[in-house]
């Protein structure tokens, strides 16, 4: 087993254990902390895929902004006052559905012969990636900024509430 694979299995184990913590932990704040672990481990997976830029974005946006936002929402909705039972009665059905999906997709991923697979991963150059983003994908990029603006305004209006309330 090469050292690359050892690192992959380590990072994958971190990711999966973090995700298991998110869906199984009883304490909801622990869930959020496990989510941080899972998201940072996914950044490690991105580095193994030689997508450095995505890994940086992942750490900045998910490791920083999104988790802080979720912790804020927990604080404001006082979820700790809720009874500890955070799971619904549909738990066995959920486990069945998730297990069936996992089995099917793993089977499909392993049994498919992927065409045009490269022999060696090359590092994704920042320069080419940004050229592609700002030349070929400039219009979607602008639309994405519009989406962010609309989400910003919408979140402020929703969270602030109506006048005279």
């Amino acid at each position: 087993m090469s050292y690359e694979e050892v690192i992959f299995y380590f990072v994958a184990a971190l990711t999966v254990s973090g995700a298991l913590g998110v869906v199984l932990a009883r304490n909801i704040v622990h869930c959020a902390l496990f989510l941080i672990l899972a998201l940072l481990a996914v950044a490690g997976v991105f580095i193994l895929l030689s997508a450095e830029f995505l890994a940086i974005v992942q750490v900045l946006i998910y490791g920083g902004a999104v988790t802080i936002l979720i912790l804020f929402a927990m604080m404001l909705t006082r979820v700790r006052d809720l009874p500890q039972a955070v799971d619904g009665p549909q738990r066995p059905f959920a486990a069945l559905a998730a297990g069936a999906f996992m089995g099917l997709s793993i089977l499909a991923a392993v049994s498919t012969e992927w065409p045009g697979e490269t022999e060696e991963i090359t590092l994704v150059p920042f320069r080419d990636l940004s050229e592609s983003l700002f030349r070929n994908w400039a219009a979607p990029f602008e639309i994405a900024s519009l989406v962010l603006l609309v989400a910003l305004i919408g979140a402020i209006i929703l969270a602030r509430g109506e006048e005279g309330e």
Partner: protein
Amino acid sequence: MIPIQNFLVLSSILFSLGIYGVLARRSAVLILMSVELMLQAVSINFIAFAVYLSPEQFTGLIFAIFVITVAAAEVGLALAIVLRIYRNKATANVDEVDALKW
């Protein structure tokens, strides 16, 4: 060299755990966190396919960037909605938000 199947299996496991969380949890915030896990699985898939199958094009990587952008917008809006529900009904439990139920 890690085979592409390893990444696909990892993202399958991550996505299935997200499905389990969305279906089994009752707190709206926890459901959102499970949705985040599913989005992460999708991003891993996009990047793996981009890097392994068409390394001279960056379509998958660009798509992953857009997935992250839209996920950030989605989290902000969804948490604002959860806050609003909490203010109106004093709960973040999705089982108790049943005003549209027959």
